[in-house]
């Protein structure tokens, strides 16, 4: 494994001795067979010189130990890379931005400090997974729900700090947006609390996020300004009932009113995460006639799609709607929603998918159709469900390209065409990637992600090279048209940050100025977020 940059082997040994003394011999990992576990299994540069690899890993179990680790690293000039559970697959896994960094693995800090089911918040350490928090709530019969990402083994904190997302109500599924108060070890080893936690006597750090003065919490997400050791998160009260219903629309242009009505319902607080799909996406691989329509150059006018939809009675779009709340309220909301869609989309049809009343029995929970919609952590996404037309080798992994697209049907169709034709011009033949049936994801509230996965391989470097090149071109193409990435693996973070170019990249320059002031030696995750301290900047 590589050594930290610019550190002699003697000083490295000295640093390791001090780290071992700080955390105990069992919590420092230096053997290759242990450090290799921190490689990014989804790395698009697997086994190549550009792969970012750690020099060692250290696993403190308290804020005091994190402080000790940071102070040692500061003394020796060793870059650290903090991870919570380190399962950021698709966005870097547990590998650092800079080779030779020491991973600060916070899995052992897994205390659930508080769950309040009257004021609806939790306070957790980094190693608390969604599953841990869920079980804690279930076992105590607490009256709150959590919002979970697809993989339920991740960290409540780690996911939030990479702007991760879930699947329920808009105010909960933006996980960083629903965090409330941080405790952070700064690059000089000092501990700071934000929000109400900054007032030692306050008991409201899980309730009120701002406290007083500038709101600095954002600096600790997708960035290297500190190691977060504690975080509050707002939770949703457990609803009485969940309805999952579907709207079917039969013309390509119907996406326009479909989105307009759904936006209105969601922003008024009547529905949870809208789930857009096109049944034609999968159908095109079973019916050559539909695939021919999808790949014809005039598909964008929608005529052939509309004809096919009418002939086969197959919707061009479908929209899943989640309702949470008291039975009479959600039934009334659904009736209201149907009336709105029926008025806006002639010929729209409606389907009942699922109705659940809480609490569920273990059997009912196991049989629930889409567990993440009801906050139940699981790993189904990696099992058979992940093996699909879009993700043919799930066990090998994927890169995610997630451009942010404005929440309108017109923008969806425009972006579909841009990326479909763009990939064709790149000569990249990923038939599953983009096309006229690509539906927007709505994980992040108030914006669409027109996400696609590009395959990566741990056995075939050619696959990785092709995906890397395609990814770089897609980032560039998207940015030219105003579609920015919200999250990306380390390999692409400099490029993505570069696309946020207003006023000669004022945003990046501001982050660099802060980094130079707070962490000039680049001790905490240098390069994270696509900016570096002066000494490590490329032009330096």
């Amino acid at each position, binding site marked *: 494994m590589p050594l930290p940059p610019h550190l002699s082997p003697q000083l490295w040994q000295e640093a390791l001795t001090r780290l071992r003394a700080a955390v105990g011999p069992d919590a420092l990992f230096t053997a290759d*067979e242990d450090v290799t576990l921190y490689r990014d299994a989804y790395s698009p540069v697997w086994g190549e010189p550009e792969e970012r690899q750690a020099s060692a890993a250290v696993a403190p179990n308290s804020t005091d130990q994190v402080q000790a680790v940071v102070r040692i690293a500061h003394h020796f000039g060793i870059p650290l890379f903090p991870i919570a559970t380190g399962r950021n697959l698709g966005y870097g896994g547990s590998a650092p931005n800079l080779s030779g960094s020491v991973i600060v693995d916070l899995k052992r800090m897994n205390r659930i400090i508080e769950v309040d089911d009257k004021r609806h918040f939790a306070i957790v350490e980094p190693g608390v997974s969604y599953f841990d928090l869920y079980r804690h709530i279930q076992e105590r019969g607490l009256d709150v729900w959590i919002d979970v990402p697809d993989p339920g*083994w991740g960290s409540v904190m780690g996911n939030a700090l990479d702007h991760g997302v879930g699947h329920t109500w808009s105010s909960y599924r933006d996980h960083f947006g629903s965090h409330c108060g941080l405790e952070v070890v700064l690059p000089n080893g000092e501990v700071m609390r934000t929000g109400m936690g900054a007032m030692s006597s306050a008991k409201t750090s899980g309730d009120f996020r701002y406290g007083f003065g500038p709101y600095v919490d954002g600096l600790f997400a997708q960035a290297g300004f500190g190691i977060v050791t504690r975080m509050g998160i707002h939770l949703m009260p457990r609803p009485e009932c969940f309805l999952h219903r579907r709207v079917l629309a039969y013309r390509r242009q119907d996406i326009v009113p479909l989105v307009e009505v759904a936006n209105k319902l969601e922003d008024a607080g009547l529905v949870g995460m809208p789930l857009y799909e096109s049944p034609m996406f999968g159908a095109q691989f079973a019916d050559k006639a539909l695939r021919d329509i999808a790949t014809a150059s005039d598909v964008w006018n929608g005529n052939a799609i509309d004809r096919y939809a009418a002939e086969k009675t197959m919707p061009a779009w479908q929209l899943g709607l989640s309702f949470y709340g008291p039975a009479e309220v959600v039934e009334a909301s659904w009736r209201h929603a149907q009336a709105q869609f029926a008025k806006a989309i002639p010929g729209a049809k409606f389907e009942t998918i699922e109705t659940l009343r809480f609490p569920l029995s273990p*059997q009912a929970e*196991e049989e629930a159709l889409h567990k993440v919609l009801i906050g139940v952590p699981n*790993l189904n996404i990696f099992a058979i469900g992940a*093996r699909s037309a879009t993700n043919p080798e799930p*066990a090998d992994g994927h890169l995610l390209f997630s451009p942010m697209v404005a929440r309108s049907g017109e923008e969806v169709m425009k972006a579909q065409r841009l990326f479909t034709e763009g990939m064709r011009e790149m000569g990249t033949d990923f038939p599953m990637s983009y096309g006229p049936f690509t539906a927007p994801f709505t994980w992040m509230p108030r914006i669409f992600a027109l996400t696609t996965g590009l395959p990566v391989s*741990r056995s075939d470097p050619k696959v990785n090279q092709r995906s890397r090149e395609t990814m770089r071109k897609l980032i560039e193409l998207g940015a030219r048209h105003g579609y920015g990435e919200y999250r990306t693996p380390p390999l692409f973070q400099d490029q993505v940050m570069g696309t946020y170019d207003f006023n000669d990249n004022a945003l990046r320059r501001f982050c660099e100025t802060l980094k130079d002031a707070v962490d000039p030696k680049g001790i905490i995750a240098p390069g994270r977020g696509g900016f570096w301290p002066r000494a490590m900047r490329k032009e330096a």
Partner: protein
Amino acid sequence: MATRRLFLQGAVGTAALAGTPAIGTTLPANHSYKLLAFIDIAHAQGGPFAAAAHAWGARTVALRGDPLALWHDAVLTSAVQPKAILGLTTQGTLFCLERLGWELGLRVRRRIDHLPAPDGTWRHVAHTDLPAWAPGMLAGAGSDFGLAAASSAFNSSGSAGDCTHAAPPPHPHRNSTPLVTWLLAAPDRA
């Protein structure tokens, strides 16, 4: 969860072992270690695999794709920490279990991928040496390879290696689900 475990109670039986080559001698030398078996019962091969694992003294845990809650119940909060875990699952489930196993110091020590072809035949790709009889036994079993897979994974005469981060073999048939037989155990430390 209870229902999945009940399934396995039904699946366990020595009758399924008839015809297995020298099962008695295939027990690992160090048989005192506590064994667990995770088996995906959504696949027909799961039943015979479970029966074999049970007959060898393993505690069998049935799943359908998602191992998260079962891992917590059968491993993390269990009074007895397993020394080794074997299984027959999808590759995606193994991907998860491999990572969960790292937390307990376990590594994938044996791995045999089972790749279905559209004509109903299966190809078996081992990442470490198998006992000499195993490839023939697997090939001869057709789609009914659960028992042969369990025997191959369990047998101590084939060397256990280190399959950490092993890449699944290429599989061109996108609409079929490969399975994988595996053994998670502590690595040999220098």
